């Protein structure tokens, strides 16, 4: 009998840390904020063990700027926070995007606006997928729905950050961060620790000096830089991930991401048992958005209901994706409420009755 792979019982926050360590993350810059505290706490003990550096920054502003410094050196580095703290990181995120600096940023989304609450929410969808700070830029945004996906996508996020020389965001929420479940850790192979060899700062020894910057004052220079960035974002479009569940014969496709996507899956199962032809489309990459796959479903004549833990943000991307042939309705789960499958079955049944 072959040996079963080892499973561990961890919170999503710990899954992120385990994934980052497996991906050979060597610098972590943290600051306390609920519901992501397990990430810096665990990193503070684990990062030194793996020969890396942990710094508790004086603020989220500083933590993100430390990330910029480590990323500029071509080192696999990461920071984590939750919504109000992510707002503070936007300054450095814009600079990283503008200077092609790879980095991984984790947002365990909590309720907003303002101080909001410490529970789950998806109010940061726009902020994550539209850049979040000043200027025309995008992050790669990955939205895990389970502890295992949190582990897997964290590993992937470092590869993507270096592949595209771009900041990558892992967008979870308080459900993902705080819920404990079994995951199966695995060790990626072929990690290139020197992926930044052609551009990273290491001291100008036996080569020309290098400069990581986002200031372009010369005539035409900034336009050129923006053109290069847009080209990169176009290249990213080929990298999409999503999950389709029971969509084949579905009349109505529920669109939901992250933890809400997972709860919606339970709702779809329940509704299927009652004989309703419903399915689920769950984007895993929020940017780039899996528009082509959605459009293909729309062309089959399916109807769409987007359900989010906010007042309607991803629904804009769903509508943009299918606008030539269809539209999507929307049902909110109000931030501040902790949803259960019935909260998704309700609006779906209403939609089915009203169709």
């Amino acid at each position, binding site marked *: 009998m072959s040996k079963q792979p080892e499973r561990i019982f961890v919170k999503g926050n710990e899954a992120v840390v385990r994934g980052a360590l497996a991906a050979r993350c060597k610098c972590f810059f943290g600051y306390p904020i609920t519901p992501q505290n397990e990430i810096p706490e665990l990193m503070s003990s684990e990062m030194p063990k793996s020969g890396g550096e942990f710094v508790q920054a004086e603020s989220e502003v500083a933590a993100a700027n430390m990330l910029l*410094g480590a990323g500029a050196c071509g080192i696999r*580095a990461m920071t984590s926070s939750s919504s109000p703290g992510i707002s503070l990181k936007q300054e450095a995120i814009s600079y990283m995007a503008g200077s092609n600096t790879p980095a991984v940023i984790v947002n365990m989304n909590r309720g907003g606006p303002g101080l909001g609450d410490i529970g789950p929410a998806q109010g940061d969808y726009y902020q994550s997928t539209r850049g979040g700070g000043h200027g025309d830029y995008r992050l790669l945004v990955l939205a895990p729905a389970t502890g295992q996906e949190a582990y897997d996508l964290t590993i992937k996020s470092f590869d993507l950050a270096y592949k595209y020389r771009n900041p990558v965001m892992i967008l979870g929420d308080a459900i993902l961060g705080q819920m404990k479940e079994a995951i199966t850790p695995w060790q990626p192979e072929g990690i290139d620790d020197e992926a930044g060899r052609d551009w990273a700062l*290491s001291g100008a020894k036996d080569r020309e000096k*290098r400069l990581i910057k986002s200031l372009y004052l010369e005539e035409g220079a900034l336009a050129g830089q923006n053109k290069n960035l847009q080209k990169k974002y176009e290249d990213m479009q080929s990298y999409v991930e999503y999950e389709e569940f029971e969509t084949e014969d579905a009349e109505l496709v529920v669109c939901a991401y992250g933890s809400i996507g997972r709860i919606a899956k339970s709702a779809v199962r329940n509704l299927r048992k009652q004989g309703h032809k419903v399915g689920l489309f769950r984007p895993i990459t929020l940017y780039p958005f899996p528009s082509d796959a959605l459009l293909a479903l729309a062309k089959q004549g399916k109807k769409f209901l987007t359900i989010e833990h906010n007042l309607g943000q991803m629904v804009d991307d769903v509508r943009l994706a299918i606008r030539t042939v269809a539209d999507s309705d929307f049902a909110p789960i109000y931030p501040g409420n902790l949803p259960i499958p019935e909260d998704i079955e309700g609006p779906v049944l209403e939609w089915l009755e009203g169709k």
Partner: protein
Amino acid sequence: MSEQLVFDRPQSVIDRPTHYCPGCHHGVAHRLVGELLDELGVAEDAILVASIGCSVFLYNYLNVDAVEAPHGRAPAVATGVKAARKDKFVFTYQGDGDLASIGMAEVLHAANRGENIAVVFVNNTVYGMTGGQMAPTTLIGQRTTTCPSGRCLEHEGAPIRMTEIIAGLGGATFAARASLNNVKNIRQAKKYLRKAFQCQIEKKGFGFVELLSACPTNWKLNPVDANERIKTEMIPYFPLGVFKDALDEGGAC
């Protein structure tokens, strides 16, 4: 009679005209940094963290690797650079608006953590690049574009003495203030900078040097009068000297 070359450009300083105004002291400060990178043999290992202000273009004048930090964040970016590359010589170069106003938190905490980096702080009492607005180091009575009647203690508060604050932090190893208004003071400035750089080379922690500098354009003075102002107005309020030196004690911790 054979000719002897007695003065040349340091190797680390790139041979190109600067964008600085006549009488500006950034050129002097740049040269001191360049000379020391050469003399201490760290130019090939150096990573400069540039700040926001006139001196952002320091990366065009020094032949070293560099990263551009957002306004005030250079000590945080430098913390990240040092965490990533512990064996490199990492330094920031910041003005008074950048370091003492928007970047106050970053510099104090980097100093207090005892980050093994060097900070060169150029204090000319104004925001130079944006056109001469009031800075946290603007002297009482000094007129700027945002305190046109002169800085008033009751309204804008007192100018901040950064070196004294840094020296008061347990994590800092070396903190000194020098001036670039005459040759004697420039030579002293270089000694302080050497010591601050030495802190890092010997892995003894955070080195900080404040350089009182002229901004003739925004002070609306000619370069000679600007130098005179440093002597008669700045030095009495910002006294020169070493405020902390724990280098020989093996660092701050």
